[in-house]
């Protein structure tokens, strides 16, 4: 799975670089800030992957970045994500003598919000790779749906998200561009359901592909 997305990322960057080589490689203006609107695909890892194994394309990210000095930027990200999967017959044991066996459906709905600091290696170029780090928190709802029963827990957490990516501008004077980014996310979030689930430090990887609005 990881290899596939590294390959996709490499392909997108390669195509973008090739396209950029056909046109002048530098922007006709100095960007002051940019805003991103990205489609986010989530790949759960570790214990989180045992909870929901499927990759999920249900995610949308809004971000803003402001150039501070040279290629250094600071900004924010807010995201909506959902991962979900159906499972076969499993028994859930409650804390009060109850138990239920049925097909069940698990999902986690997340609203992460982070402050971000990043460094653009070539901020004035058509293709501008960057590395960054997001620090913030998440609101998560973990739902275990057993037929009509919806058993859920809500959690707030602290999270760290190192990220690599690239801005690919559509033209020398265009205010629009594309964003491709890949990140790893570590959180203090956990999933606990009576005697059935106990996992902590949920982790995931995210692939973001989206549009960028560049402001001079």
């Amino acid at each position, binding site marked *: 799975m990881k290899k596939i997305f590294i390959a996709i990322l490499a392909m997108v960057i390669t195509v973008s670089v090739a396209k950029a080589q056909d046109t002048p490689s530098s922007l006709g203006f100095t960007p002051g800030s940019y805003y991103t609107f990205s489609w986010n695909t989530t790949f759960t890892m570790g214990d989180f992957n045992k909870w929901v194994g499927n990759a999920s394309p*249900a995610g949308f990210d809004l971000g803003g970045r402001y150039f501070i000095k040279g290629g250094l930027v600071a900004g924010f990200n807010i995201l909506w994500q*959902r991962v979900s999967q159906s499972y076969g017959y499993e028994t859930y044991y409650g804390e009060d*003598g109850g138990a239920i*066996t049925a097909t069940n459906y698990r999902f986690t709905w997340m609203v992460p919000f982070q402050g971000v600091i990043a460094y653009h290696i070539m901020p004035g170029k058509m293709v501008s790779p960057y590395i960054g780090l997001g620090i913030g928190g998440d609101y998560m709802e973990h739902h275990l749906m057993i037929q009509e029963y919806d058993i859920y827990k809500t959690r707030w957490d602290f999270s760290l998200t190192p990220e690599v990516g690239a801005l690919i501008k559509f033209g020398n004077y265009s205010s629009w561009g594309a964003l491709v980014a890949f990140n790893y996310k570590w959180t203090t979030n956990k999933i606990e359901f009576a005697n059935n689930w106990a996992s902590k430090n949920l982790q995931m990887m995210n692939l973001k592909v989206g549009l960028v609005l560049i402001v001079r």
Partner: protein
Amino acid sequence: MKTKLILLLLGAGLFLASCTKYPPSSDRLLEDLVIYTKYDTSVDLTKFTYYYMSDSIAVISDKDSGMKTSADIQALTARISQNMTSRGYQRTTNAKTADLYIGVSYIKNVNINVYYPGWYWGYPGYYPPNYWGGGGYYYPYYPTYITTYSTGTILIDMMDVKHPTTDKKIPVRWNAYIRGLLTGDHTTAQIEQCIDQAFKQTTGFPVQH
């Protein structure tokens, strides 16, 4: 301009799809077989010895409710009996010497929106007449509750007939609700497996031998 509009619409669609908290119900396999059990954790279920259970069960139907039996029902009651015996309980044919009375009912073709435990107790034949003293039953715990009721559902109540309350109500110490079991879609082996599972998932029962 057209490209930007398409991109904006695409973005808006993705945004709306991703912000929805609940996935579509079609993904969730609703109305599938469900085995739900609950027991009174304040009582030691290993302390009981004798139980009484009729070979016929209360069939609850829009047209022909009453105590009935069939090959499926016989397989069902035999499996309940087998599970009880393997956990050390002894069946008695004299209801008055029993510690526990097991009442089994089968919702044949009644559809209601909300299941209120115990509503079927009023159906004819659910328990032997003139035996309980007229006090009725109650659950000492919050019982099985399901918001959708399907046909083919089996309900099993295990009543502690030796310890009625002062107002003569009989406490139900264990109950099981198996939705969609007797719809005609399941084999006898599957019916037996579901009964086994109902006992297996009740951690308060004595260890199986």
